[in-house]
């Protein structure tokens, strides 16, 4: 039985060095051309008055034939000796390098074509550099057009030495350097009678020896969540396993949040199948606790989580015509994971032709740069996982690259004063979320402060603007003139409501954690913030709160040391229709926190643009 897996080969090199001809000839010589295609090529070549043109096999588009160059990446299949191959033909023309990258990124192995009459050219060097950047390690060099130099051994040796030296600088060791004539079919399938001095392998022998790029089954688990499905209360997280494996019962970590949960089950359709999934599989899974998981989150095992940081150093192959500008806003993508970043600094620019440091960053240069995000990023380097990233400016792909290093810094909090004449929508657009007042009400000891602080941390790590208002920071300053009389308590809540509303208007998520026992006081706060107000009721029965009594307040109230203590000697008017109800007596802190995170993200998300 033959190897079922197709070997994908990319053929790269200078525009006129014979790539398409090699493909046409390989298809013909392995008997892989569909019936009638050879006659079509003959007829087509004849009509254009040129000798048989093998590249016409590929050049399907009229525009291409007229120009006699390859426009885009194409893919053709052939079979030889029981093995299937897919050839990706990548164009050599300078302006089509984005296509070359698109094609070559899918390849297991590469053939680098060099014209023996021209030697190593600018494009040869650049394509060789890209092979290194893409991480293609199986490379064979074909020294083409040997027929044009009378199959001269010296000509071959000289060009072979030149390319070998250049590849060495890039840390690429070619598996072989084969002298060929693509047009005449020399040394493609069978050894060439024209070059008895060459005793090395033919092109097909080299390809037969290459293996499909190994799937990363042995690496640490990485799965990027593509979607979250809700079936009633059940949530299935879907994605493809990039590396490692995932089994029922595994304890996983969700990056960048850093939360953990146990895998309740592996889900497939129509049958769930085995409780284990491996690299390459697209699967669903469920968790035993309601941890908040969103598209783009990276699932790993605890202990082998990706690094988490607000910045990273990257090497980027710049594709866009407009050069990168320090300070500009970009989108950094790792598959479905995306973050908005600022190009903080360009530290080095490399000319891919000479491999020297270049003066200016621009199209087709490689730049080393630092990217910084306002949200925590989950990052892998080559040592821990796939460091490959794609960078966009607006909707345009401007670069592909790799993460070189994780910059382990925390973001300094600098507040930007806002100019007047800025709308609420504009503020929300800039922040990436809307402002809100999350009003947490409940008995003393019901868990308001603990949840508020944890929620603040979680939202902050997602890059959101968030601040907790509580008795400590309000009573110490703005309300220090107030005591604990009934009127002062009402005034206390009124001021908190107004301050929170200002925060929300400024685009910030204000979390207000106050007992606020009276419905009419809470209504005043709601009136101040309008539809940005969310009433979150924490319910726990008095006995549970009293049992917890973190600050010893209940004990003091029981002893009569605190007058009008809510729940003991003053009423608590529980909200009748809260926007969110958390039963802190029944459910764990973790469960309630996940509900809060989820609720907040949903309510502060920007409207989807069409």
């Amino acid at each position, binding site marked *: 039985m033959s190897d079922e897996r197709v070997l994908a080969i990319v053929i790269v090199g200078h525009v006129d060095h014979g790539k398409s001809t090699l493909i046409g000839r390989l298809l013909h010589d392995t008997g892989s051309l569909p019936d009638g*295609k050879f006659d079509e090529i003959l007829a087509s070549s004849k009509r254009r008055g040129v000798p048989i043109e093998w590249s016409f096999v590929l050049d399907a588009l009229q525009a291409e034939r007229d120009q006699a160059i390859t426009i885009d990446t*194409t893919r053709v299949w052939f079979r030889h000796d029981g093995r299937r191959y897919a050839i990706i033909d990548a164009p050599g023309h300078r302006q089509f390098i984005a296509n070359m990258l698109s094609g070559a990124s*899918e390849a297991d192995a590469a053939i680098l074509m060099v014209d023996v009459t021209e030697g190593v050219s600018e494009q040869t060097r650049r394509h060789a550099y890209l092979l290194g950047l893409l991480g293609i390690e199986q490379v064979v060099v074909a020294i083409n057009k040997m027929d044009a130099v009378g199959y001269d051994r010296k000509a071959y040796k000289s060009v072979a030495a030149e390319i070998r030296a250049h590849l060495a600088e890039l840390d690429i060791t070619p598996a072989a350097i084969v002298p060929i004539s693509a047009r005449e079919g020399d040394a493609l399938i069978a050894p060439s009678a024209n070059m008895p001095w060459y005793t090395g392998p033919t092109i097909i022998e080299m390809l037969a020896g290459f293996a499909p790029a190994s799937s990363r089954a042995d690496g640490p688990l990485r799965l990027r969540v593509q979607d979250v499905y809700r079936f009633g209360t059940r949530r299935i997280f879907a994605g493809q396993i990039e590396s490692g494996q995932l089994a029922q019962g595994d304890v996983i970590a969700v990056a960048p949040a850093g939360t953990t949960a146990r895998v309740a089950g592996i889900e497939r359709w129509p049958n769930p199948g085995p409780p284990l999934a491996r690299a390459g599989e*697209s699967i669903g899974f469920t968790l035993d606790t309601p941890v908040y998981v969103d598209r783009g989150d990276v699932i790993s095992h605890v202990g082998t989580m990706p690094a988490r940081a607000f910045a990273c150093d990257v090497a980027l192959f710049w594709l866009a015509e407009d050069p990168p500008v320090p300070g500009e806003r970009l989108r950094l993508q790792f598959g479905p994971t995306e973050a908005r970043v600022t190009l903080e600094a360009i530290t080095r620019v490399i000319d891919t032709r000479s491999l020297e440091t270049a003066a200016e960053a621009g199209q087709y240069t490689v730049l080393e740069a630092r990217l910084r995000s306002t949200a925590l990023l989950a990052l892998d380097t080559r040592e821990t996982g796939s460091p490959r990233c*794609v960078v966009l400016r607006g909707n345009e792909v401007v670069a592909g690259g790799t993460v070189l290093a994780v910059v382990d810094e925390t973001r300094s909090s600098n507040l930007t004063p806002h100019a007047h004449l800025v709308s609420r929508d504009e503020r929300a657009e800039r922040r990436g979320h809307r402002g809100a007042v999350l009003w947490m009400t409940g008995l003393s000891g019901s868990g308001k402060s603990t949840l508020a602080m944890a929620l603040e941390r979680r939202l902050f790590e997602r890059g959101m603007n968030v601040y907790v208002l509580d008795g400590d920071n309000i009573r110490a300053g703005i309300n220090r003139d107030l005591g604990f009389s009934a009127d002062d308590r009402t005034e206390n809540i009124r001021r908190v409501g107004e301050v929170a509303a200002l925060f929300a208007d400024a685009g910030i998520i204000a979390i207000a954690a106050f007992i606020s026992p009276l419905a009419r006081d809470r209504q005043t706060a709601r009136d101040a913030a309008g539809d940005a107000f969310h009433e979150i009721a924490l319910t726990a029965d008095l006995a549970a709160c009293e049992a917890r009594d973190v600050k010893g307040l209940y004990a003091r109230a029981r002893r009569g040391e605190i007058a009008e203590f809510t729940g003991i000697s003053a009423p608590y008017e529980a909200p009748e229709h809260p926007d969110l109800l958390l039963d802190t007596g029944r459910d764990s802190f973790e469960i309630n926190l996940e509900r809060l995170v989820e609720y907040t993200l949903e309510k502060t998300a920007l409207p989807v643009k069409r």
Partner: protein
Amino acid sequence: MLWSMGKDSTALLWLARKAFFGSVPFPVVQLETEMELPEVYTFRDELARDWQLDLRIELCPPESSVDQSLAPNSRAAARKTEGLKNLLEREGYRGVIVGIRRDEQATRAKERVFSPRATSGDWDVRHQPAEFWGHYTTDVGEGMHVRIHPLLRWTELDVWRYHERENIPLVSLYFARDGYRYRSLGEKNITTPIKSDAATLAEIIAELETTTQPERAGRAMDHDSEDAFEKLRSAGYM
């Protein structure tokens, strides 16, 4: 998602069901020329019922309304192209999922998995966005839509092997009867069966592993001229 009831788009529907755990969460559109073989219509109605598809049938404009410079064999494709344009304009869909493959036809080899198009369907083959490392162009500008080709990297053999592995329902015409079977299903007036004794999936796979006949050999439109397919595609054909 476009569904022609053929082996490719039926495999694609199956993939969608797998991806979404049993349901297809978007409309399924058939570009109707009223020229399919009777078995194809029966298959369509049965599957739409059994799989609870949100099936929309888009009637394509008549042959008399399409470019008359096209050879007659290519006019069904032109009708579908027009039908698709009408659908996109009327419904305002921003994405169309199509089951084409790179190995079907040389021009399709140039496709991206996510291919941005003008609403008119025009395909700017010279300025396609780069697509690598799992990045796809999902955001397109106003007045644009994106053609999504999940099967682009599959080969004809891959599709058959997938059918065999997953046991997906198929139109009976693909299996040989009296020494003939359909390898590719097009409109009834322009598609002919091939000589074959392959009556099971395993036999079809064995047959394809050795054939040098192109897949669409039974499709008359592909032999009109070397430019017909390209003209159709740059005008928005799938």
